[in-house]
């Protein structure tokens, strides 16, 4: 009994010890919550704040700042970036814009959504949206298609009056994505997602990963890791098609062959 108790205490100690380790292993303290995202934004690609999809990131900033966030997007997803900026009580007309860049810092086009919007004088807030193209698993190196990896969002005032420079604003960012399924499957995959600095990360030994919190350019992965490109609903379609074809084959056979054997024919025939 006593041995068991000691063992229990030992396990408990182990659990307590492991708890902070588990907390440390999360990419950033802000990212641990489900919907409460980081409360800060970066000021360059290098310092972009990482946001998970589905989280709401907030930031207090000044008019004229360039705010950067980054989020992971995987093949088959069609991300939508939404940003809201709460403007100060009195201001002149301002134009705000969100730009989305991929892991290679190439600008990505928005299919639709108000990417740029002009806020008339004294409007309390401005809402922006950008619906990206579907992220493909692979594309030619000469193409600009969105590929799985890190995506950067830059939010800034494009046109503003000098008197408004430095005025406090509150920005809010949310990224969600629609799963486009096997319709978006393409012929090929990347070996590694387009995550900046991934070569340095794969080169370093992953074993001593948890006790060296060295800074990395991008750390977040999609919720269930990067897809291997193996699974898609195409398997179901194809399998169902095969089964239906087999049934149709049996039906066709019965139609021409007739049912059963003619009487008098031995079963061994």
């Amino acid at each position, binding site marked *: 009994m006593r041995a068991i108790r000691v063992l229990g205490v030992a396990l408990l100690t182990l659990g307590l010890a492991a708890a902070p380790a588990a907390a440390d292993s999360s990419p950033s303290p802000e990212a641990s919550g489900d919907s409460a995202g980081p409360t800060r934004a970066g000021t360059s690609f*290098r310092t972009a704040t990482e946001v998970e999809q589905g989280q709401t990131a907030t930031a207090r900033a000044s008019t004229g700042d360039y705010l950067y966030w980054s989020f992971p997007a995987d093949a088959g997803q069609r991300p939508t970036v939404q940003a809201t900026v709460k403007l100060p009580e009195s201001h002149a007309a301002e134009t705000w814009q969100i730009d989305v860049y991929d892991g290679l810092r190439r600008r990505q086009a928005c299919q639709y959504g108000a990417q740029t919007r002009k806020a008339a004088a004294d409007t309390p807030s401005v809402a922006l949206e950008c619906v990206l193209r579907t992220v493909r698993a692979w594309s030619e190196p000469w193409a600009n298609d969105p590929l799985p990896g890190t995506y950067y969002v830059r939010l800034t005032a494009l046109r503003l009056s000098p008197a408004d420079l430095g005025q406090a604003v509150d920005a809010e960012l949310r990224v969600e994505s629609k799963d486009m399924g096997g319709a978006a499957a393409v012929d090929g995959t990347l070996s590694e997602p387009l995550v900046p600095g991934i070569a340095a990360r794969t080169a370093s030994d992953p074993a001593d990963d948890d006790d060296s919190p060295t800074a990395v350019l991008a750390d977040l992965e999609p919720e269930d890791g990067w897809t291997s490109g193996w699974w898609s609903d195409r398997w179901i379609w194809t399998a169902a098609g095969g089964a239906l074809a087999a049934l149709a084959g049996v039906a066709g056979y019965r139609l021409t062959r007739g049912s059963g054997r003619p009487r008098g024919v031995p079963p061994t025939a």
Partner: protein
Amino acid sequence: MIRRKRPVAGACALLAALTAGLVFPAGAAADEPAGQDAPKVNLLLDVSGSMRAKDIDGQSRMAAAKQAFNEVLDATPEEVRLGIRTLGADYAGDDRKEGCKDTAQLYPVGPLDRTEAKTAVATLVPTGWTPIGPALLEAADDLDGGEGSKRIVLISDGEDTCAPLDPCEVAREIAAKGIGLIIDTLGLVPNAKLSRQLSCIAEATGGTYTSVEHQDELTDRVNELVDRAAEPVVTPVAAEGADSCAKAPVLESGLYTDREEFGQQRWYRVEVLSGQELRASVSVAADRAVRPDYGVLLRAVTVHGREIVRGEATGNGRTDVLSTGLRYPKAERDDDDSGKPAAEVVCLAVTNSFSADSGVKTTPGLPLELTVDVVDGPDGSSDVASFGLGRGWWLLGALILTGFVAGLLWGWLSRWRFAVWRTN
């Protein structure tokens, strides 16, 4: 029995304690990134005569700044090396030359003794001129040494009174000298001219400008900037691109920084093995007033001058940075070209088409940031589409039809065979 088990239990407890010992220091060390020097922050406070004005929540600007500093000093993270420098704190006379030299280190950059720093701040009395330019130079010198991130937080309530030295150009020079030095500026109850000057200083170094009207805004902002300095960031490595591929430096995977003047070409080289993929992206920052149309071009060129792939970006309007990237998967080696060297040298050429009005200084060049990643290339297709899988109602229809026709034929065939067999 119990005696026999005790050593096992003891071993378990020991193991747990050991694990805890291994894990807890790791948690504590998370604050101080391994392999990175401590971040340094220099607070640069304007103590000029105009700080006497009583327009921040009913108290004087100086009193608001002092209170904010006290709160910031309380909240400063342990690992940050914090220093305080003043400008215009000592010389009250009218001699411009003397007034423009008036900048002093109030508290040296180093481990923070909160009481000492607070006592030093309490002694400040609004006095003299506003020599922002010279003070920035000195503040940058205070931060010298170490590889950690460096940040100057400038708090001022009036524009520079020491022309012709333009603080904006000073900031640009400072940024060009040191890697990763950022100047953030805060304007106390600013007018349009001060806003412009301070935001120019901030933009020259990739920092931010905030205008402050209330004391709590000041505290929050300075706290946030100090916290931001404490966040671990990747420090880029200085590289110097050449004007042709032959002389270009060879880069490995990593993050690099360089300077590129208007219309200049910068060349770098990267070695890519067969079956590897080169990923490169480049950002050219507009750290000064540039004309509203601009572009950046990144080309991957063979040593013989053939262009492999390019990334290009153009832009219009206000921007901090313009960036583009490219990807070059090098094909696997065939057996028959074993005579060729295993690694191919790929030349990366960066050009920009930023331009500036006359009167804007063109040196130092625009800050350039280059990331290079050489990863394993894709090894053949493994995507579902290439397995021959399909989807959609047409596919289903086609399969059913084929199956049905095959069934019909087979049925007809077996009936015919049976008829033949019967006649036999």
